[in-house]
């Protein structure tokens, strides 16, 4: 009964959060000084596309019509919900008109998910295992060395890490030739070994950079958590019981220190849908982050809403899942 009550009220909150978030995200760009029509005209004129003032004036009007931006903000808002609820359609992209937003997202999202879920999981595992070891055996030399390395890598701005990797592994020692896109020329996405091998190779550098940075983050937090847990009485008692160091580390320290990390992992899995903008820029990797950034710089409202909606859904769902599952993970927690 308690669980049902909790579930119902938690799910209500979930939908409220999504609704409020999307309303917020819908309104902000419309009150910013950005305008999709102006952006498109700006792009055409900045390119030097020679267009006489009379033609520009005419174009402005007809584009507004084509983009469906004629009505009031309220009408557009109603329209937006109508389209989404009646078939999950985000409408056409403005900057890449007439391509539909759904199609653009469909093309980019798999790349993002595959790269980011892989690197998130890898760095989470590495960070947590190594962090648990160093946190538990904090006085060993390797713990100190690792902690110092992580402490130094962690604050380096990500793009410096990325650039260093490119310079080092693509230029000075060209082990991973520079490339752009998710696969080499002529290799088409499909489920065969050639493609997977190629995609792995192409994704290696961006993945490495993400793992380095992600590892630093997970490692430092796990290290700190494990240090705290290692001070707990039950860890001393485990030692008293005569368990081996490894048993204590995995069954006692890690199992306890891991709990907040599981929550954090669930949330980062949610934020995957934000993409990794700087990674995509630095490694020319296809993905949702760059798509979103382009959407903002070109005031592509529909595309922006499409991507942010997915991201809001993902993060809110991750939060929901964490809240519902947490009592199963941590027996001490009760629903409230």
């Amino acid at each position, binding site marked *: 009964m308690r669980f049902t009550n909790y579930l119902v009220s938690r799910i209500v909150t979930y939908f409220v959060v999504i609704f409020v978030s999307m309303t917020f995200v819908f309104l902000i760009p419309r009150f910013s000084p950005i305008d999709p029509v102006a952006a498109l005209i700006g792009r055409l004129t900045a390119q030097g596309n020679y267009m006489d003032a009379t033609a520009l004036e005419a174009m402005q009007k007809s584009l507004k019509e084509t983009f469906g931006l004629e009505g009031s903000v309220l009408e557009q808002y109603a329209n937006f919900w109508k389209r989404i609820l009646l078939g999950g359609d985000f409408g056409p992209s403005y900057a890449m008109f007439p391509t539909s937003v759904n199609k653009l997202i469909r093309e980019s999202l798999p790349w993002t998910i595959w790269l980011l879920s892989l690197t998130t999981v890898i760095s989470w595992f590495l960070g947590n295992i190594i962090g648990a070891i160093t946190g538990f055996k904090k006085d060993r030399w390797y713990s100190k060395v690792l902690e110092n390395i992580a402490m130094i890598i962690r604050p380096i701005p990500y793009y410096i890490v990325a650039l260093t990797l490119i310079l080092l592994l693509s230029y000075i020692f060209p082990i991973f030739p520079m490339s752009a896109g998710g696969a080499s020329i002529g290799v088409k996405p499909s489920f065969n070994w050639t493609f997977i091998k190629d995609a792995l190779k192409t994704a290696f550098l961006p993945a490495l950079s993400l793992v380095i940075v992600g590892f630093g983050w997970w490692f430092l937090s796990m290290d700190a958590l494990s240090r705290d847990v290692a001070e707990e*009485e*039950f860890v001393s008692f485990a030692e*008293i019981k005569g*368990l081996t160091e490894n048993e204590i580390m995995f069954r*006692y320290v890690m199992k306890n220190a891991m*709990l907040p990390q599981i929550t954090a992992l669930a949330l980062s899995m949610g934020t995957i849908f934000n993409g990794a903008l700087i990674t995509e820029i630095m490694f020319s990797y296809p993905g949702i982050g760059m798509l979103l950034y382009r959407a903002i710089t070109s005031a592509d409202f529909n595309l922006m809403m499409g991507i942010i909606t997915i991201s809001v859904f993902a993060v809110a769902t991750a939060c929901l899942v964490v809240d519902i599952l947490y009592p199963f993970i941590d*027996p*001490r927690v009760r629903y409230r």
Partner: protein
Amino acid sequence: MAEKLLEINHAQIYYATLAGYVKAVDNVNFDINEGEIVGLAGESGCGKSTLIKSIYGFIKYPMKAISGEINLLTNGNKLNMLFVEKEELRKVRWKYISYVPQASLHVLNPVTRIKKQFLESVKREHNVKEKEAMDEVKEYLKSLGLPPDVLDSFPHQLSGGMQQRVIIAMATFLKPRIVLADEPTTALDVVVQRGILQMLRDIQKELKNSLIIVSHDMGVHYQITHKIVIMYAGKIAEIGPTDEIFNNPYHPYTRLLINSLPRIGDREQRSGIEGSPPNLLNPPEGCRFNPRCPSKMKICEEKIPEMVEISKGHFVACHLFQKNGKRVKEDAE
């Protein structure tokens, strides 16, 4: 003659601090025999907890064994717990010697069921199937009067007293020769305390092993122990059979300790011992108790008193007493 299970010879265990060594256990000697219940008594910070941890070989930085021996005598083998290999230590722990920590809600792993925590140690030693081990454990709990369904609980679902019982059950399941209990009842309420002590005594009777119990509460010692070791500032002040210590304490410190004990029919609050234990970084010269001693002599500030046997099995380290047990103090005054 009961078998000797443990001998402590000149044990020196210090704490390393930036300011220097804290001499927590300084030159301590005594033996423990089979079937004995020994109490370690003294104020907070007298080194009794350090000593019992050292007996268990539980020596972690900044704790440091300096010299001496704490020999565990198992089947003719001698194992110096102060300087022992980790592996060796793991072999004797729980099997020959067990440790019951201070009762607290944080001793058991909060995210693992009791069952699993129980089995962890059992399986390792017995190398038996989980199911068989489980049955044995259930049987054992029943014999101790514990409901077997605690095994399926998480620690936070049990009361503090129940957790402590479970821990004692774990510690005694493998029938160790020595059980160490470090303040096993502190932080529990009086009724529960009595139950736990009863349980410890029952188990000891059953196993005929020795139990070493650390407590700052003289009442606990009175109830359960055969022999008491009174520690003060890292040194032993007095050792003796429990009733002798209570009826005929020699050391001024022991007397003060016993006097501070509430008795039935008391009207007024008993006073504690005046002053506070010394700083063990720089303990006082001579007898360490001298700054607080009501019967202080000149020699007390100059010479460390030696341990003398006053009657059979009753030792005291105080300048007031000579080997024959005659008080010297009257003469001096």
